[in-house]
């Protein structure tokens, strides 16, 4: 048991630090490379710097993750996608009394190490203690809501923003969005790329070097992704 606790603390601390720090960097993407997921970014935005909202949103997934870990040994992807980023954000904001602190990778990394170590150790050792009713309620409400957000609300939100931003943003978001939906299974990355390419075309014109290179680059990437995901 002690061996498992020590290992859980190490693993949770490392993964939590990386996930929370990467999540903070998402707020500055695409300027710097972040990591997490678009849905994580959307969900963190939804809680809007309110520590209680961040905490309760993560809590819902603690219950469903506990169900998963007891059943299959998988912490479930929600631990690093939702629990760690949300609780780290809540902790960072509460500790610094600054609503924008969740965008600070250094502070988030520290909170993430603490949150990750605590959550992973808890799930690996004590998950069985959570009443299964609580886990069911959380799973039946939060999971379907999160699924709806992932698709179609998230892509639609990006799509609406792109269509409202200008002619070329809308055109490219529509083209890449449809392609991304069929190739990657979600339109969001396509709509984001559409906004990036659209901005470039609007700023510098179709025949500018940057626009041509970007369109070419995106095309090649789409073909490669389609290939690696076995689409042809």
């Amino acid at each position, binding site marked *: 048991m002690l061996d498992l606790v020590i*290992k859980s603390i190490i693993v949770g601390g490392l993964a939590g630090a990386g996930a929370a720090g990467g999540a903070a960097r998402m707020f500055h993407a695409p300027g710097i490379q972040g*990591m997490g997921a678009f849905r994580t970014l959307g969900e963190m935005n939804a809680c809007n710097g309110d520590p209680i909202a961040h905490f309760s949103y993560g809590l819902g997934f603690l219950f469903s993750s506990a169900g998963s870990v007891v059943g299959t040994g998988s*912490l479930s992807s929600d631990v690093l996608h939702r629990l760690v980023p949300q609780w780290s954000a809540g902790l960072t904001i509460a500790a610094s009394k600054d609503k924008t602190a969740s965008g600070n990778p250094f502070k988030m990394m520290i909170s993430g190490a603490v949150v990750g170590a605590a959550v992973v150790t808890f799930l*690996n050792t004590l998950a069985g203690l959570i009443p299964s009713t609580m886990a069911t309620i959380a799973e039946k409400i939060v999971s379907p809501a999160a699924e709806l957000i992932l698709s179609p609300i998230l892509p639609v939100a990006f799509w609406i923003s792109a269509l409202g931003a200008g002619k070329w943003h809308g055109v490219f978001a529509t083209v890449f969005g449809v392609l991304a939906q069929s190739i990657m299974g979600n339109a969001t*990355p396509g709509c984001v790329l559409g906004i*990036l390419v659209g901005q*470039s075309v609007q700023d510098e014109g179709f025949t500018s070097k940057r626009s041509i290179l970007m369109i070419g680059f995106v095309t090649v990437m789409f073909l490669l*992704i389609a290939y690696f995901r076995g689409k042809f």
Partner: protein
Amino acid sequence: MENTNKLEKFFMSEGAFAVFMALICSGVFAGTSIFIQYHTGSFSTTSVTVMLSEALTTGSFAAVIGYTGGFLLARVLEGPLVGILDIGGAIMTGVGAGLPGLLLSMGYTSLVENFILSLLTGAVIGIVLAAVILGIRKLMPGGYSSMGTDIMVGAGNIVGEWFGPIILIMAAKFDIWTGLGAMLGAVLCHTKKSPIIGGAILGAMIVGYIAFLLGFTTLGIGA
């Protein structure tokens, strides 16, 4: 104080991405080491973890490697393009299940099963992936600097507005008591001018649980 500022600046730099990748990959990869030893603690998605357990008992890793390997490559290519690496496909699934499966099938079992070695292996994998991703970004023409970021922030806010009401709908759809709890929580939060989402979730869980304990509802469990 000055040191803290320096640190904060460093972790905002492009290169610090490699540090975060080393951290998360080390943790996730070693998480799979724990999973092999204790059958708990895998960071992969539930369905992929089930595939991995299956492979561990049969010794046939082809399905896991094929499925997760494609995901890993696709996400690593996509990540630098959009500025956000999807850690689900790339790290939890790819690094947490695919690469351990690959190493085990090639006979490098100690890299996965030995906890200390697994931490190091994971860190190395993270640094290599970070190098590939940062390399692709270097090749990207034009640079990104704030291109259309305001538009994307706008999209994020739209999602934020939708989330609370959707939780309320789902809570009411599931059970009248969870619906009432969510309603109560949301109203409380709204009058206190904080986002309704937190109150909705907590309210649904607390009121739903109490109603279940008092026998007002079965929540569809065991009835």
